[in-house]
């Protein structure tokens, strides 16, 4: 199962812990939306490739 963790803001300890538990033992990638110019095309490709996308706070 491929999981994509998208971070809408810089992940704090709570977000990191939840993402870590959900991703444990699974193929996981991440994308940081909290930058000046996110590569939305790349993000959409990653979303389409994942089995599950989680957009954390």
């Amino acid at each position, binding site marked *: 199962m491929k999981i994509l963790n998208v971070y*809408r*803001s810089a992940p*704090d300890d*709570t*977000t990191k*812990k*939840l993402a*870590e*538990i*959900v991703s*444990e033992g699974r193929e996981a990638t991440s994308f940081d939306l909290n930058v000046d110019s996110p590569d939305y095309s790349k993000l959409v490709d990653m979303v389409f490739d994942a089995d*599950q996308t*989680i*957009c*954390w*706070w």
Partner: protein
Amino acid sequence: MSKKAFFMTRNADYSVDAMRSTLGLAVENMYSFNAVVDIEIPELDEHNKENLDWIRDMEGEVYSNVDANVEKNGMTKASLEEIGQKLRDIEIIVPYGPI
């Protein structure tokens, strides 16, 4: 087969509406759960207490890792670790609103 959704809020301005969205999916025949994480929210009014009960009637649950929400609003206590473990079984995970 019915899908499972799990809403989580970390901002008190969003918690009650996230419960409403939780109920919204429950009535769409999904298993729908909610957690209030790390924050204390005010006491629920009668309408929102009914929503919480209704979520449970639809085989969902409202969790919190904050004791005050358990005592004041009847939410079910779950640690952050336990909430994370529950998320592993969920197809639609909704970190709701901003922090």
